[in-house]
């Protein structure tokens, strides 16, 4: 079994997954001279497989599609190519059961807006080869991000904390404790949050927030992660209309 590595001369990244994440990651990676291979190539990977240095699978919303993408990548790419896959809503270990070459899969916390900051959470599985983690570390370092290794659990660290804050903010709105705008103002000015939770939810996308909470609720099975009905409505409608 050959270890995943980044070829020195070719720096092309294949990015597939949720639109907002593909856009963000493509924009940032191309800013650091990576050639970006368009996500629609997922259906015809064979001819270009040799060109791909690293593959990123960034689907959080549609896990069937995620499974199809990972299976296709695993079949087409040489075993030396690492796959970094968002593992917020389904653990990296569960994902690795979908593919043959489990050693190359590394979980990452990819939630919209987060790649704009300076740290990325990375979760190896029991199967993950150390050199695949090294590919993740080098890739993120090359786009000026540090990595933090965390255990491979649904919700990981920041997505779990942040989505629960947004959920609680929506419960407060639903209960008419304060207006959405006032709740945002209160959290920014009262305890110095970098953004109000509701405006933050809008930027991440309420569909994404809903998917994280839904995964936490299913995985942990606790009442604590019950999703605010108002948040569910907004995720379905795609916007905040109050």
């Amino acid at each position: 079994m050959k270890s995943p590595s980044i070829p020195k001369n070719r720096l092309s990244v294949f990015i597939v997954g949720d639109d907002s994440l593909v856009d963000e990651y493509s924009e940032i990676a191309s800013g650091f001279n990576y050639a970006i291979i368009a996500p629609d190539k997922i259906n015809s990977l064979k001819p270009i497989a040799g060109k791909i240095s690293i593959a990123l699978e960034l689907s959080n919303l549609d896990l069937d599609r995620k499974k199809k993408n990972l299976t296709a990548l695993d079949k087409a790419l040489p075993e030396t190519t690492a796959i970094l896959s968002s593992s917020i809503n389904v653990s990296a270990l569960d994902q690795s059961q979908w593919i043959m070459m489990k050693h190359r899969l590394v979980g990452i916390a990819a939630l919209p807006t987060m790649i704009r900051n300076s740290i990325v959470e990375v979760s190896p599985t029991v199967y993950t080869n150390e050199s695949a983690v090294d590919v993740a570390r080098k890739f993120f370092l090359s786009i000026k991000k540090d990595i933090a290794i965390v255990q491979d659990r649904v919700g990981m660290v920041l997505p779990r904390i942040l989505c629960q804050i947004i959920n609680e903010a929506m419960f407060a709105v639903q209960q008419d404790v304060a207006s959405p705008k006032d709740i945002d103002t209160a959290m920014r000015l009262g305890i110095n949050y970098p953004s109000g939770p509701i405006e933050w939810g809008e930027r991440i996308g309420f569909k994404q927030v809903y998917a994280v909470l839904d995964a936490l609720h299913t995985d942990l099975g606790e009442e604590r992660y019950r999703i605010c009905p108002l948040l569910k409505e907004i995720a379905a409608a795609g916007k905040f209309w109050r």
Partner: protein
Amino acid sequence: MGTGIARVAALNKFNVALYDINETVILNGIARITSEMKTSVEKQKLSQEEMTGTLSRIHARTKLSDLSHCDIIIEAILEDLRIKKDLFRHLEGDVKPETILATNTSSLSITAIASGVKKPERVVGLHFFNPVHATKLVEVVQGTQTTEETMQRAIDFGEKLGKTCVRVKDTPGFAVNRVAQPFYGEALRILGEGIASVEDIDGIVKGEGGFAMGPFELIDLIGIDVNLAATQSVYEQFFNDPRYRPHSIQRQMVDSGKLGKKSGKGFYNY
């Protein structure tokens, strides 16, 4: 916190009667304001005149009857419902009928505090945040019987102090202390489940989330005992809704005397 509120009110041209049963407590408070303001003058954040003016507008008072001329009373005494209710009940005979009775409580129900007085419609929450002079926010909390007029006057007052006021309905934790619960609660659970270390969780929350402080740094600063009490209060007021349930790590830290920064030991060593 009372002295912090007195300082901001006096700085913004209000005459302030700073009340305590014990005069030494008041004088210590004024001494604290003086030394804090001196530092601000040295750093040229404040003029000498502003400081002198502010201090000249703060008057020590040790009798409740000396407060009868006040247009607004703000209590920031012990977080004990019975003591707060007693204070307002005693005051209401002394003050003018239109005087606002405001409470700076962070954890008790405004409606419950108002329940002992004859005119609950003039009782309102004015929830300031530490440090009062530097934090822009005031939660103006409407009890079930607080009138719109009282709310409006309380908001006007807060704005005259240079604060941004948000209207909040009287519910456990109000807005800030409620919505912030998962910041601590989820971090504690993530730690308890062995997903990441204290240092890693704080690093991720700051580096990936852009927060100024990590949850454990913040709990240490607040005091682990104070944070646990606040969590427990919200939890109990919501009749044990699991969303607000405290974590056994908190209790264990308190039991072992690790109270955070003030005790030298908490999630970090100081």
